[in-house]
């Protein structure tokens, strides 16, 4: 089996497990929508303020709950599963790539659903021609956040306080992604050019991909 065949197979199995468990669709997404509802309630009935903070709330909730998507139960490999991968001769780098592929797809779906909820609940004022830049920013953020979550998940695998610890590691490191995502629409509204922000997102994704693939073997050893 080639490297890419292994990666695609791992991604396929991951998605299948997720379809059965349904962590993202049944638990994380509804919880994130509840969080979207909490902000206006805490702020008071100030329609102008609610409209203005909509995109910012989307990115904040998206990244915070996105971590839960990246660290979902289906992505937590038990030692037996890791042993099986090792016995089957699966390339650790292919495992990272496959895991990132399936996670990115789920993250993209999660963020798109959250965006629809934000549009309905907050009616934010968006600049003309926003859908394509927003889609690009969400896609790149999804990839970066998943790569970061996968790395943090591996580093904290099997630890008692895994979820809290991995979130502490991911949250600060995800700041370039939040900045890039949020500033893309801001720059579009101010007409100051979105390219630097998309490049920041792309560079972060690339750096994380290089780190993930380059450190795949030590990560494999570390998570045992």
């Amino acid at each position, binding site marked *: 089996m080639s490297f890419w065949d292994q990666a695609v197979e791992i991604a396929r199995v991951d998605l299948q497990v997720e379809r059965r468990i349904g962590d993202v669709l049944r638990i994380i997404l509804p919880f994130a929508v509840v969080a979207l509802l909490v902000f206006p309630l805490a702020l008071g009935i100030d329609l102008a303020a609610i409209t203005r903070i909509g995109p910012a709330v989307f990115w904040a909730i998206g990244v915070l709950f996105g971590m839960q998507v990246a660290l979902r139960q289906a992505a937590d490999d038990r030692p037996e599963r890791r042993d099986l991968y090792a016995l089957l001769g699966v390339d650790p780098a292919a495992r990272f790539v496959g895991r990132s592929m399936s996670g990115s797809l789920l993250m993209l779906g999660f963020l798109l659903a959250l965006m629809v909820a934000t549009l309905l609940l907050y009616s934010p004022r968006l600049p003309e021609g926003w859908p394509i830049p927003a889609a690009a920013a969400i896609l790149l953020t999804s990839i970066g956040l998943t790569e970061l979550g996968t790395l943090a998940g591996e580093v904290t695998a099997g630890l008692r*306080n895994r979820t809290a*610890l991995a979130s502490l590691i991911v949250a*600060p*490191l995800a700041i370039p992604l939040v900045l890039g995502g949020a500033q893309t629409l801001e720059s579009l509204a101010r007409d100051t050019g979105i390219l630097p922000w998309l490049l920041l997102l792309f560079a972060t994704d690339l750096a994380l991909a290089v780190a993930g693939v380059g*450190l795949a073997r030590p990560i494999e050893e570390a998570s045992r």
Partner: protein
Amino acid sequence: MRTTRILMVIAAISLGAGLYLTFTSPTDRLQGEFTRIVNIHAPSMWVAFLAFGVTALASIMWLIFKRTAWDRLAEASVETGVIFTATGLFTGMVWGQAVWGRAWDWADPRMASTAVMFFVYIGYLALRKAIPDPIMRARRSAILGAIAVIQVPLVYFSVNLFRSLHQTQSIRPDGATMPDAMVVALLVNFVAFTLLYVALTAARIQVAKAEEERAAETVPAGDAVTTPMLSEVEDV
């Protein structure tokens, strides 16, 4: 041990010289006496960047050579770096309150990115604390230490990349933007803080070695209890 003590003495002497120059250098026309805080703030941040750079290097070296010494260096350097980052943040906030009129200004991306960097390494220390097995701890923290350093250039260049209240670098290749006496005081403090970093890191490495030796000598509680044999029990 003796080397660490000598390093401590040298660091203390240079810190004394740095402090003397800080209080005898000229006062800034606009910032007044508060400009002296910069002599602690800037060297603290420099040492923090240095410490996290050393951590990344030590982490990569551990991943290649798997020698405990690199793990000890990475741990010691992070702990020292976190202390200096906290000092840099605190002194920056005191200076900001005095000069900008507010301790925390969101118009300064350097402040926010430094706080983010601080929490990345708090996460690193939390990860170390969560793993009891020394080999697994060294492995996992080496991976995080190698990745976390991505933040450092972003923090350093944030004043050049974004519109910011924070001033850009004062000492540049084309010359300094302040009087010579101020430059001398700042440079002496940079050297003093660097020596202090080296001394503290060396001392922390000594503590880590002592902790490892103690752990090796300690008998786990369970080992003191032996299972009773049926033949040794009389009243069955």
